């Protein structure tokens, strides 16, 4: 489908390349310091016994691969997108059957001494596939059917990763909402995304848990329903100003939800809310009176609140739920999750303005902080380079994200633009959540800091994302899709 000249002068975006190598340098240095032991001599012969040696091996392998990536043109990447996506999905299925379990998630292939995590590579496949599908001229994400297909493309790998008990990596896929937003998805989806998270937190805050067994000792439904009902009543009164029938009807409905919750069991309450949600939506559909939409949305939100605690208990491992509850200060777990978080904060906090200097991070290496070369690697940077180091690292990431958006916006090719946004979203989610969890702003869900954390598969995955983008960008003059 291409027109124009088949090839033209290639223009590599050297600024992105530079930012990439700066981050890689920071990462290698951080992995080295996190396992630094002056007693141990690293020589050429035992090099690969050390984390830093293994990581260097992956870095070199990735460098070779990113050169290979430059050999193909955009047309090739467009054509290969569905194939790569299918391979990714097949790998995710295969790992459920043949994979090995490491610290609770069955998400690894073991090939001799090499470990490989297909969920890291699946991000590349999914990003390409989303770009492939949405860049079709006939597809518009505002159309329900096209939106659902796009959602399915994202949800399939996400669901498979959830089956591996790797909730953290699965959540990364929710970041695609930014891509869809840029391509025209209604802002209501972003608002819904934020509301879902807010209601999730609120519900857990109002639910009482047994601190040991994590059983629900008191549901948080009633206080939230009363509070939400009052809030919604006020909003309805303002929104439907002087439409007395609507206001009265809505207030009556909110009150009845609270009343019903008082008298029936949880299971029937859920049924009632489900029926109400569908019924009012149907009425809205027929009569186009927004009051019905209000009632439907309220029922849906109430049903979500009613089930969220049970959902947590079903889909989250005990320790994951515990981390979230500790973060929200709902339970205390000074021996486990709470202790680790406290240690992580102490390590970062002890860095001060300028840190203790490279390889002098005594606190991290005293063994107080867990997984300090992977999920908690930011502790090293925080302790050894202090706030200035944090500022520089966050600055580097922000510059990279900014640059990717700039690249995206200068494309005439829709495919490249969408892929660029996907890359930015994935990087953003990892970078935000990883650092946030080490300083107590997000629950510890165990996802790596891009290009910094120890781990070959993730390093490879992030390198591929950046360099496929650089390759696509280099031929932006030849527009197609």
């Amino acid at each position, binding site marked *: 489908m291409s027109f124009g000249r088949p090839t033209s002068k290639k223009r590599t975006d050297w600024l992105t390349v530079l930012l990439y190598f700066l981050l890689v340098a920071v990462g290698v240095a951080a992995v080295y310091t996190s396992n630094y*032991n*002056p*007693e141990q001599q690293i020589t050429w012969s035992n090099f690969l016994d050390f984390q830093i040696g293994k990581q260097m091996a992956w870095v070199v392998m990735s460098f070779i691969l990113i050169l290979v990536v430059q050999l193909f043109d955009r047309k090739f990447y467009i054509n290969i997108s569905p194939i790569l996506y299918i391979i990714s999905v097949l790998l995710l299925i295969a790992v459920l059957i043949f994979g090995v379990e490491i610290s609770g998630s069955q998400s690894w292939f073991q090939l001799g001494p090499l470990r490989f995590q297909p969920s890291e590579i699946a991000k590349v496949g999914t990003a390409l596939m989303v770009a492939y599908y949405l860049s079709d001229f006939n597809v518009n994400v505002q159309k329900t059917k096209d939106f659902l297909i796009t959602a399915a493309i994202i949800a399939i790998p996400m669901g498979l990763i959830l089956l591996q008990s790797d909730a953290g990596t699965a959540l990364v896929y929710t970041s695609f909402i*930014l891509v869809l*937003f*840029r*391509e*025209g998805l209604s802002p209501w989806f972003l608002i819904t995304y934020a509301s879902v998270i807010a209601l999730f937190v609120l519900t857990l805050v109002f639910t009482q848990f047994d601190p040991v067994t994590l059983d629900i000792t008191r549901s948080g439904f009633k206080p939230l329903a009363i509070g939400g009902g009052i809030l919604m009543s006020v909003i309805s009164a303002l929104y439907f100003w002087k439409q007395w029938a609507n206001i009265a009807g809505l207030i009556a409905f909110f009150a009845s939800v609270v009343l019903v919750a008082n008298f029936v069991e949880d299971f029937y309450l859920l049924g009632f809310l489900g029926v109400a949600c569908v019924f009012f939506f149907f009425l809205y559909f027929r009569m186009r009176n927004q009051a019905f939409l209000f009632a439907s949305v309220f029922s849906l939100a109430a049903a979500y609140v009613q089930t969220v605690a049970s959902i947590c208990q079903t889909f989250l491992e005990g320790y994951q739920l515990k981390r979230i509850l500790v973060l929200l200060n709902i339970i205390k777990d*000074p*021996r486990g999750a709470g202790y680790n978080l406290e240690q992580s*904060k*102490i*390590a*970062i*906090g*002890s*860095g*001060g*303005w300028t840190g203790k200097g490279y390889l002098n991070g*005594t*606190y991290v*290496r*005293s*063994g*107080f902080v867990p997984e300090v070369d992977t999920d908690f690697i930011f502790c090293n940077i*925080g*302790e050894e380079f*202090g*706030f200035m180091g*944090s*500022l520089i690292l*966050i600055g580097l*990431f*922000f510059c990279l*994200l*900014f640059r990717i*958006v700039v690249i*995206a*916006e200068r494309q005439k090719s829709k495919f490249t633009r969408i892929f660029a*946004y996907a890359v*930015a979203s994935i990087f*953003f989610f990892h970078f*935000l959540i990883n*650092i*946030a969890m080490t*300083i107590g*702003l997000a629950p510890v869900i165990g996802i790596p800091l891009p290009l910094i954390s120890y781990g070959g598969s993730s390093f490879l995955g992030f390198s591929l994302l950046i360099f496929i983008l650089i390759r696509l960008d280099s031929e932006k003059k030849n527009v197609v899709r």
Partner: protein
Amino acid sequence: MQFDSRKYVVLGVFLFFSLTLLFRLFVLQVQDPSYKDLADSNYIRKKTTYPARGLIYDRNSILLVDNQPIYDLMIIPKDVPKEMDTLKFCELFNIDVVTFEENMKKTRKYSRYKPSVFLKQISPRVYAKAQEYLYQYPGYFTQVRTIRSYHTRGAPHVYGYLGEVSQSLLDTSKYYALGDYIGISGVERGFEDQLRGIKGEKYVTVDAFNREKESYKAGSKDVPAEQGQSLNLTIDIPLQEYAEKLMQNKIGSVIAIEPSTGEILTMVSSPSYNPSLLTGRDRGENMKMLNRDSLKRQLNRCITATYPPGSTLKPLVALIGLQEGVIHANSYARCGGYYPVGNRGVKCSHGHPSCSNIYCAIEQSCNPYFCEVFKRTIDNPSYENEEKSLAKWVKYLREFGLGETLDIGLPGMVKGTIPTVEYYNRIYNTDYWHWKSSTIISLSIGQGEFAITPLHLANYMSIVANRGVYQYPHIVRNMSRPKPKTISIDRSHFETIADGMEQVMVSGTGKWSSVEGIDICGKTGTAENPHGDDHSIFICFAPKDNPKIAIAAVVENAGYGSTFAAPISTLMIEQYLNDTICNKSKWREQKLLETNLIEPKKKKEE
């Protein structure tokens, strides 16, 4: 483009969250000084508080094992300065420079940053001195923990001993640290998870002179250690100690079980050892000494030594014969002092007229009678061939737990071996000749392909005492175990056998050990020992109705079952049921206490 302006929203999101992170980091790293203080590990020390291990009681809540405090010298290698006065340090702690260097190396290898034990169990005197001078040596500090102390010398094989965790466990376990103690044998090992408790953490502030000042943040960050759960053994310690006294200077085992519950009342393995040897500072030396001892004192013979059951198997052979219908209580079998089989024959040593019923046969332990019973069982025409009938016979043995690993709560139980059809097919089968009942006739008198432990014997006796109800034997009260099951042999047959075993004590092979006023059912046995004198075996239960105790006793190299194993068992019964030994039995007790079977054996070996 329609949605171009949305790039500003996306960039806004990126910027907003990046600034949020930076703001939080600014507060954490620059504004709030508390984290900086916290991190300075020279000022805050995390100490592990060790839980006291769970206590161990006997069945009547008599305390057997508890704890006493000891002091360890700990080290954090990274805090030890390069220049330190090693000689003075060694003098303070009474060690030589070589030990110092070795321990330094070992602890450094474990971790430079985590605390580990440098010297174990320093004496109270050295501890007092160390408190005064330790500030001169940064990186070292003392820590209290507890070791076992024993209130009895009885039953050391049951509770077992502790030892340091192995390197392989250190590599895989998150709980244990270098120098921690863990159960190595007995219930200390079998119930390690319950007994060990949960370690706690304590934070103390340390001044610039390495002196501990106060608990950090008034102890609000401390996590107290939780003591391990106590265990109640099923052992009756007075009876245990009495049995051990009777077994002194003899090699062998005695196990007593309460048939109605399966609770093990005594478990004696002789010769024994003093449990206090394996705790305290000299544990290593004592361990070496015990390992050199040819008598293998730490071995729990009750569950690891195996013997052929000899004549003690006969009641079971009879039970199977009765259940299979090949004999009845009044079956006759000729005894001319000899049972003809091929060109070998099985002798009957007891010199008695032929038996016209099973009671007589058990009473006289008549070998030809049981050969006949076994022959009829194997040649039973209701079965297709010998293989089928022998398989059925073996199935009965397995029902009684013979040749099975019995999970009584102690690790290291030996399964033993019992005969199998496959074995004989392999050994005796050729194209033109197949094994017959006569080939394997020695099984009928408990010889041949048998190797079972004293625990197997006691368990079997407990089932007979219960008239076929199998209460799973166990050593810790209320431990999880299978529900009791019923053996597929009619209760009436058990009554027949009990009558026969009663006769043994009235007028048969056990009459010299009977106790006036107690209705004991017993059976003597002798296990052939190709390496020396035969082993004396005795199994019994009492009283005959509503039995309170079932016993199996094995005394090695002691000849017939009636000479040693029987009087030891009946004295225990008397002590357990009457709480005293009557004058008529006193001379037997006296004789047993005086007998030393180990000395002559040792001499012989020399």
